[in-house]
Every structure is written in structure tokens, then in C-alpha cells.
């Protein structure tokens, strides 16, 4: 069989921690997204409510969901990169294994 990565990947000691952070971010975003769907479903007229800069809640919430995804992605990347650098470097020093994530 020929399963396995398309390129040779090193051992990623940070994988478990990154997965937990990813799940936390995913659940947080799910809650915010669900809020949008619930308001639209149960009380669509609430979306006409005026908020900031003359925008109604529908536009603000919609733009907010998009911008939140971008901001969370950037924060997630910074955290994951730091974890990878620290955990994989430690492992490399103690085990002499090739770390994941270096090639860019």
C-alpha cells in the first residue's frame, strides 16, 4: 500500500497540544456562529437593530464573523508556532529526532 504523507514529515511533538488549542478555537467559533444562526432564525428583525458606525446588527455580525475567523487564525498560528518551536526543539535536543515544521 502507498498510504502516508506526500512528503516525508518529521515527528511533531506539539501535535497533541495544537489539537487541543484547535478544538478550543473551533468550539468558540461554533458558539459565535450558532448565535448568528439562532438570532436569524428566532428573531430576524433583531438583525435590523442599529449598532456602530451606522451599521445594523446583520452587517456588523456578518463582517464580525469573517474578521473573527481571520484574527483567530493569526493568533492560533502564533501560539502553534511557539509551541512547535519550543517542544520540537526540546525533543530534538534530548532525542536527536528531526523536528516537524521547519521547511517553509
Amino acid at each position: 500500500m502507498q498510504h502516508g504523507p506526500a512528503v516525508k514529515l518529521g515527528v511533531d511533538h506539539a501535535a497533541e497540544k495544537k489539537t487541543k488549542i484547535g478544538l478550543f478555537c473551533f468550539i468558540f467559533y461554533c458558539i459565535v456562529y450558532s448565535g448568528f444562526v439562532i438570532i436569524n432564525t428566532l428573531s430576524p428583525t433583531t438583525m435590523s437593530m442599529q449598532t456602530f458606525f451606522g451599521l445594523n446588527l446583520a452587517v456588523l455580525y456578518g463582517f464580525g464573523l469573517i474578521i473573527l475567523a481571520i484574527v483567530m487564525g493569526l493568533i492560533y498560528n502564533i501560539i502553534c508556532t511557539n509551541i512547535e518551536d519550543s517542544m520540537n526543539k526540546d525533543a530534538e535536543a534530548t532525542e536527536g529526532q528531526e523536528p516537524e515544521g521547519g521547511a517553509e
Partner: protein
Amino acid sequence: MIYTASPIAIALFVFFVLIVLGLSSYFARQATSSGGFYAAGGTIHWAVNGIAFAGDYLSAASFLGICGMIATVGYDGFLYSIGYLAGWVVALFVVAEPLKRLGKYTFADALDAKFNSKGIQLMAAISALVVSICYLIPQMVGAGALVTPLLGLPHWLGVVIVGGIVIFIVATAGMTSTTYVQFLKGGLLIIFSTILVFMVLNKGLMKTPDEKYHKFQTISVAAMKDGKIAEISDKSYSVITQTEVDGLQFVKLTKDNIPTWWKLTTKDGNNKLEETLSYVITADGKTLYNGEAKEKKKFYSVGHMQKIIMDGKEVEKTGKLSVFSFFSVIENSTVIRFTKKIFFLGKDKVTLWYQNPTAGTRLMRPGVKFKIDKGATFMDKLNFISLMLALFFGTAALPHVLIRYYTVPSQRCARKSTIVAIGAIGFFYILTLYMGFGAMVGGVLDVQSSNMSAPLLAKSFGTILFAIISAIAFATVLGTVSGLIVAASGAVAHDIMDQFLGMEMSDAQKVRYGKISAFIVGILAIILGILFKGMNVSFLVGWAFAVAASANLPAILMLLFWKKTTAPGITASIFVGMIAALGIILTGPDMFAGPYGLTRADAFHPLGQPGIISIPLAFITLVIVSLMTQKGKAVESSEAQA
């Protein structure tokens, strides 16, 4: 609408196509191995891959479909933007890195990484093929729609041209050229969409979009008798007939032997006739555009504001607007939309679009297309939730998106390219709201095809911008179709022939069979693109998302996060999710009212969007079957596998 091909548009189109073909030829030599053909050798830079992700994702459905939907129904179209983008959160936080660790060329590899199960190989391949084809159809339909105004060619020829070019791209160079085509197109699409939005804001809003905009006439009704018009004030017109359609009164008048259709309205006790746009197929097969032959060019582009309120005062035009005031002005104002009615008068088939004044507050929130407001039933609301669910979970399960994770060298690059994609796609989706509303009130809408709203908005700012935007839109279709065909050919040649059937093939043979598969899938796409002409692009893309979210995502998520997942559980989940989603769609009201030519009431059930049933069903199936088939085959854990 009546289009005239522009020489500049044709020249730019040819220029773009030549660049695309040149890139393909240049990268062809890198596609000599199966790794090069399916995964670009895993050598693509994360930033390039990120923009290529955006290029893949911002398909005809996004640029043409969403902008068109916003232009016709307002904020409801933007719900697709929100859902499509939110789906990337699932891809980034949950799927990207584990999938990169597990897979090789296709997402079936990832699902089957620890099991070596024939069932998974076959079902995952079929699912990838079905989703890819569901996604291919609207792209090809979009290509045909685009070529008509751009080059003045018939729809079928547009589909054949796109299919032919794409087959050449894929069959010569595979994933590498597809990636660079997507990178180029994704970047240009975002840059020129930004320029277009800047021009829309700079122009501002006005009651008469430009001096060439058709002035829709109103005629006073002098006398009525028994609900029928007895006399009108403009004696140059003669009343031919009056008919009622869905509670609305439409009147046929003639002037100089030219028949036109008008809508009878009553306000403050005064009756008047408002001009409509009409398209009539007569009993003897003639087609009349506002009563005249097509060549007379009397079928106008439309969309304007009836009343503009700025800072509490009514104005004729606003002047330059900011990114915030653009929306607040529209919300406080009234927009004239054109609503479609179809009816028969004797043996004449009449399609007309009447002026429908709509309050900005109504357009700036959901509810015009999706019935969630007053009068909405439980099923209407369920349909809405189901759609938002499928959009959210569909992205991370689309085969042509998933295969792009194998083109980068590491998990970190997979993550970074996803973030670049989210940034680029998110920014573009914010622009769609400006472009959509800009087209809605810019006097540019083609009532017969909302898909052309964004390119036509560009046309209102000059032929060169129109030509560039149209050429990019065409490249959008080319790039997306290329990626889909790579995914589909991977499903056939790699997953089914190589993995499932276990055919002994050398690496060169694998590439050859991949190219042959690409050719066959490409021909199939051309045929389907011609057959499905006229179907709504977003409607078809919604299928792909629903099927992907139902068939693939439960399997991917449970494989990664539930230790007791088994191979039969995954196989059954994909099968049940795919069949349930397709079954609900094919027996639902949208199919009956659309392709089947029946009514919504004839449908087996009232649910148009399957996600709310089929996604949980796939999860439940996986859990039950996995629990029934433990026998030490459980997955240790996703992270332990890595």
C-alpha cells in the same frame, strides 16, 4: 439582456488563456511522477498555496453567484459568504494539520491511512467523485453564461472551450500548473474586486445611475370599470388586454404596433400603470424583448433607487461614500428591484419583470430569499438552519480543497496556507456585499441572469475594467474546474484503480491513467455543463456542500477524534451521509419546482436543504457501526497515529 462582444474584452480573454496555457506547458515537465501530478511534489510555498486555496475556493459560485444573489435579494446572498468563510475555521482548527500528517494524494488516503480497507477506499473515492461532479456542473454552467456576453458565443460553445482548455491544463501538468493558475487568478480577482469596490464607493448612490439608464414610464389611469381599465391618460397607447397573475394586475398596451406590458398599481385611490420589462415567446415561435426583436436593443439593464435618504434628508445623489455610510444610506432608502412573473396569454409565454419598491431595511437583513421572517413555517426555518450547517461543515470536506494540503512541504505550511486563504477569502467576501449592493442600485442588472451582476457592475465603470474582470472570472472557472478535475481523476485513477482494484502500475502508468481519467471527467463535465444550462449556480454548489458535509466530514472528524472509530463505521457513514443528502435533495421541493418542471407541493417532503438530517445521520451511523464492529480495530487516537 442583449450583449455586444467587445474587442478589448476578447483580446484580454485570449491573453489570459495564453498565459494559462503557457504556465501549463512550462510546468508540464514537473508532472512526470504521480507525486508531481497529484500533489505538485509537495513543494509549493505556503503563501502561494494559500492564495491558490483562495483561487480554488472563489469559484464561479462566489464571484458570479454570491454577487448576483446579493444584487437581487440583498443580505440573503451574503449568508453564503459568511457560511463559506466560516467553513474555513473547521478546516484550519480541526482538519488541516492532521490531514497533512495522514494523507498522500487524496483525502481517501487520509481516511484509509490506518485501516487498509477496501470499503473505505471505494466509498471515499465515490464520494469524492460525486462531490467533485456536483461542484463541476455549476462551474461549467457559469463558464457558458460568461462567454455569451464576453465573446458573443453561444452557451454550449463556452462550455466546450472551458472544458477543452481545462483538459489541456490538467492533462499536461496536473497540480503544479493548477496551483499557479489559481494563485494568479486568486490574486488578480482580489485586487480588481478591491478596485471595483473603491470605484463604487467613490461614485456613491444616485436615483438615476447614469444618463443612459432607461427612464421607466408611468401612465395614469383615467377611468376603471368593474376592476378593468376603461381609459388611460396617454392616448398614444391602446389597451389590448388585462390579466391577473398571483393577485397582481398586468396590462398589455400597444403603441405604433409595439406591444408592451405594464403593471397596474393603486396608491391613495389613484390607479396608474408602471412599465415592466417583458420577454415573450409567441405562439409562432418569435421572441420579443419589450415587444420588439432582440436587435432593437430595447431590453434594458435595470436596478435603481427610488428614494435616497442621507443624514435624515432625501437627496438625488449622495456623492462619495465611506465603507460604513454606503450601507447606512441603503438601509434608510428605498430600492427598486425587478421581480419576475411568468404566465401564459393564450399560446404566448410571457415572462415579465415588474418594479418592486423594497425598503432598504428589508434588504439589509436576511429574509427576502430565505423565509425566516413573519409567516415562515417551522420547515422554512429548518431549511435555513440546514443550509447554514452545510455551508459551515462543507468546506473542510470538499475534495479539491483537501488535496491542496498535500502540495505543501509540512504541517506548519498547511496551517499557514490555510490562514492566508482565510485572510484572502474573508477579505473578498466582505467585498461581495459592496459589489452586490453596488450592482443592485447601479442600473446594471441583467434580469435574465443574475450571475453576470459583478462583471456588469465593472462594465458601468468602463470597458477595460469589464474586460479584465470578465477575463479573471473566466480564469476563475478555468482554475476551479482544473482543481476539481485533478481531485476527480485522483479518485478514479489513484483511489479506485490503484488502491481499491490493486492494479499493478508503474509511476508513469499512474500519471497516464490520471491524465486519461482527467480527460474522461472533463468530457463528462462538458456534457453536464450543457445539459444543466440555466440552472442556478449557487443552487448546484449548495448540493456539493451538503453532500460533502454529510458524506465526508463526519468520517474525517470521527477518525481524528474518536478512538473507537472502525473501518466499517467510516464506510457506512460515508455511504449513508452521501445517499441521505442526495436522496433528500432529489426528492425535495427545489428539484420538483426546478429541473422536474413540477410544483413544490408535488415533492415527497418540504425540506430543500438536507444537512440538518443527513449530517447527524452520518455521525450516528458511524458511531453505531463502529461500536458494533470493535474487535480490536479501533483507532488508537488521531494524534497517536501521527
